[in-house]
């Protein structure tokens, strides 16, 4: 334990009693806030890249499985297994294969969000009313046109809900990405876990980041699905 807690010294304890008592010190925070800026942006990058790649893979799989139903079970089982493996274990399982760093962290984070996005896109597509699709076919749309002009737009609420879950979860898991050598806010938390000021700022930034990204996706959803608002207003 003592070896564990004797972590990197990130402050000078001698002068300020609040700091030497590991307290919550607004002055220290104001003076040292810049040390959290880089980890914060690393965290943003990890989250956005992982969710973007995960979204590209999982939504493609969902669209393919929507037409070829037999794919649903195998894809669910594989992504389900990836989802179940704790990301902290995944980081170390990948280490001998991909080495330390950003790539390892991204692979582990992507593997975690696949199931969430796959399932939500598929649910969204499945929930498109049969009559609407019939109307589209009646207008002479091909399968491809039907997918892009009718089915995918109508699936957007579920798709976006999946993205919101994926983003908030990834922000949380990215706090462990420093185990893979990819930095992020978790590295700051880990450096001095008994110092209240440090824990509150680094942990708080992670929570704020999750909330902001969540709200951003919600706003995008509102903007690209105006018809859902019209229904709600009625």
């Amino acid at each position, binding site marked *: 334990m003592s070896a564990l807690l004797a972590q990197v010294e990130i402050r000078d304890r001698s002068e300020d009693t609040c700091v030497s008592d590991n307290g919550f010190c607004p002055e220290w925070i104001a003076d040292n806030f810049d040390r959290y800026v880089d980890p914060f942006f690393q965290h943003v990058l990890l989250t956005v890249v992982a969710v973007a790649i995960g979204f590209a893979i999982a939504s493609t799989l969902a669209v393919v499985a929507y037409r070829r139903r037999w794919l649903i079970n195998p894809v669910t089982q594989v992504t389900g297994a990836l989802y179940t493996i704790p990301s902290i274990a995944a980081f170390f399982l990948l280490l001998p294969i991909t080495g330390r760093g950003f790539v390892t962290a991204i692979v582990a984070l992507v593997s975690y969000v696949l199931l969430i996005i796959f399932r939500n896109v598929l649910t969204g597509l499945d929930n498109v009313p049969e009559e609407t699709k019939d109307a589209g076919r009646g207008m002479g749309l091909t399968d491809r046109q039907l997918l892009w002009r009718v089915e995918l737009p109508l699936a957007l609420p579920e798709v976006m809900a999946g993205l919101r879950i994926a983003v908030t979860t990834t922000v949380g898991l990215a706090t462990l990405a420093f185990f893979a050598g990819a930095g992020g806010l978790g590295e700051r*938390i880990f450096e001095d*876990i008994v110092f209240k000021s440090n824990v509150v700022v680094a942990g708080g930034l*992670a929570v704020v980041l999750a909330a902001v990204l969540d709200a951003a996706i919600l706003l995008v959803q509102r903007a690209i699905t105006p018809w859902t608002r019209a229904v709600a207003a009625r």
Partner: protein
Amino acid sequence: MNDFVDAIEFIFNEHESPAGGAQVGGLSNMWELTWEHLELSLVAMLIACALSIPLGLWLGHIGKGGFLAINASNVGRAVPSLALIAFFVAYIGVGFTNLALALVLLAIPPILTNTYTGVRQVDRDAVDSARGMGMTGAQIVRRVELPLALPLIFGGIRISAVNVVATATIAPLAGVVTLGDPIINVNTYGDEGRLAAAIVVALLAVATEVVLGAVQRAVTPRGLKLEGGGRWRRLAFALPNNRREAPT
């Protein structure tokens, strides 16, 4: 691939610690760590269930507090588990009890949300006919709403349990020696010890998921399996189904 061979060898045979002195690795050492891991997870899960299932049943029964029950999950997801544990270490202190408490907080939201949703999803006609048969509120909860909500409740327990097992890996930060110890104190256990611990943690999480998934299927009332079983499972955030339904 050699790294994996070394790691598996570490699980079965004792080694001298790279830091010198103590022996690490081997089945008895791994079992000791696994047992502590399981004990911590189990205590946290039992307390979380004891708190959130009755609360969820009650809120679902009276049909109030939906905002709280639904949003508990959203808020819970936004708080990183490392931040939660760090907060406990900095403000409350290290040790088994404090850490179990942190894991309880982590485990409550999915169970609470799923229990509430499970009760609200129960067919109102079933509740009305139970009431018409003269059942009291408590009897309706125990004999109608609870059994019909069980698949979803277990879905929530499953999500929480896997999450708790995963998070118990960082327990050594709070002074509890779980399977995370070789991961965090790599100097004592060496690289192969760390990889060995990662393998065991992954297996433990998968085993938790598989066992609780089987329990979830076993407690699903037969009527729900026959018709609309897929709908229940989908709400449990588990498997999607192949049936097409109108949007709800």
